């Protein structure tokens, strides 16, 4: 890999006197779809916070699109669309769908400046991409969880980022809506040539969709093609429960967690 979009160089991140991530080194190419798995508290979200400069690096550096977190955070943030976990936002705050999506353009607009007609057209365009254009004037609080996630995905996409960081976008929504959302993300990945890092607790969401899987648990335990990582022994280590990979009639693998501890 000569010119990767993202480069983690010996990255460690600490919260006070506790190391949350240790010596992460990896490279991700433009256009790759990366799944990130690991148990709770394994540092998955912390890795995103490190990329975004929201959690200072204890050691090492992260490069995105030719810039590094230590030198040029502003340029890095401009090239990223971020969909945080749902608990960071407050859906009771008044706001229409169009207002929420427009927020994704505020950093490029700058302080004291109002959105232009072109900005409004861009908002309409990305809402069409996520199939939520008919909800443009609806209050965000009136939408279901799955619909809200589509709107937040539109907000992450509106600034035309190179890299999309998705932190458990399918949490707290029903399985059918989850699958439709994942299909949409896969479609956007293909059509927009996006690089995507996707945190999930459901490894079945990754099968057949992502290029490589990153298994984090404070350290980078494994990083490789899906077929190499989604194996029973590795997944059993990830979750501390016996995990089986079974094959469905169509040959598609499916990961199930048994009720026996390891």
């Amino acid at each position, binding site marked *: 890999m000569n010119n990767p979009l993202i480069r983690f160089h010996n990255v460690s991140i600490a919260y006070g006197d506790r190391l949350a991530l240790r010596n992460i080194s990896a490279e991700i190419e433009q256009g790759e779809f990366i799944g990130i798995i690991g148990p709770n508290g394994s540092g998955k979200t912390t890795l995103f916070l490190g990329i975004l400069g*929201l959690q200072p690096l204890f050691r090492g550096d992260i490069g995105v699109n030719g810039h590094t977190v230590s030198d040029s955070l502003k340029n890095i*943030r401009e090239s990223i669309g*971020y969909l*945080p976990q749902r608990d960071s936002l407050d859906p009771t705050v*008044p*706001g229409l769908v169009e207002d929420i999506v427009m927020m994704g353009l505020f950093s490029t607009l700058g*302080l004291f400046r109002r959105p232009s007609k072109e900005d409004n057209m861009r908002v309409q365009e990305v809402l069409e991409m996520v*199939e939520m254009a008919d909800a443009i004037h609806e209050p965000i*609080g009136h939408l279901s969880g*799955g619909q809200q996630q589509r709107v937040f995905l539109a907000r992450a996409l509106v600034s035309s980022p190179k890299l999309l960081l998705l932190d458990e976008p399918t949490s707290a929504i029903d399985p059918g809506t989850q699958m439709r959302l994942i299909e949409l993300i896969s479609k956007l990945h293909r059509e927009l040539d996006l690089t995507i890092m996707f945190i999930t607790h459901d490894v079945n969401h990754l099968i057949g969709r992502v290029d490589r899987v990153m298994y984090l648990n404070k350290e980078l335990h494994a990083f490789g093609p899906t077929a190499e990582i989604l194996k029973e022994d590795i997944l059993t280590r990830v979750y501390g429960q016996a995990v089986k990979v079974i094959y469905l009639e169509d040959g598609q693998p499916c990961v199930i967690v048994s009720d026996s501890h390891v």
Partner: protein
Amino acid sequence: MFDFIHYDFLLRSFIAAVIVGSLASTVGVFLVLRGLSFIGAGIAHAAFAGVTFGFLTGTNPLLMAFLFSIASTGLIDLIERYGELKYDAAIGMFFSLTMALAIIFIGLMDSYNAEVMGYLFGNILSITVTDIYAIIAVALLTFAYVGGLFKELHFITFDEVLARASGIPVTPIFSGFLLMTSLTVVVSLKSVGVILVFALIVIPAAAAYQLTHRIGIMVVWAIVFGILSTTLGMFLSYYLDLPSGATIVVINSFIFGIAYLVSPKKKKCEPEALEATERERAMSRDQTSS
């Protein structure tokens, strides 16, 4: 009814009522939405400690009120950020500390000072020309700040983490907003008093929240309710000889009651209806993609 135009003191009170009502309710919108309503009370009590310190030491009470409220707000912010303590606990500590300081300063005074008590309960009919100038200056500054950074304040209120991730300078913008809140509280003290200024910040914003899903419209409603309550309160106080601060709060609460009763937000869809809408949308999407 309009004989107030012929009395300078009533005209001054009217101007103060309009500006203070709109100012306090504007900052109130963001404080209420961020769950920081109580900081209004914290700042007011710190300002009162400053007022009493000013009278005790012979310095300008309003300047002292401003310095005390700024120091208090800054320390509350620092404790919340670095002390791993939530805002409500930090505000509660300073609320009590500054009130204790005010009581000590009053105790150290040689004699009873009626003017100090005026700041405690407020009297909009005692506004002077100098007070009006101070109120106008703070209003111009605050409206320019909130108007200029409206979209950023909305973003921070909705999702602070994402605002930071997007490169919005969250800490300086919100610290500046808290500075405007401190100034607003200080210039409102004489009109509504330490105890009741909190109500002027919270209630119009809470009433406005009942009526809209757009933050811009919420600010407009809050300003309307703020002005309505302060001006009506001022007139009722004058014509019925009632305490002005208390009258303003009662009117505010009455407005909130009406807003709550007529709120369109109460007409929510039943969960089954929402699920059905979601299913219809999903089916429509499936049909489109196939």
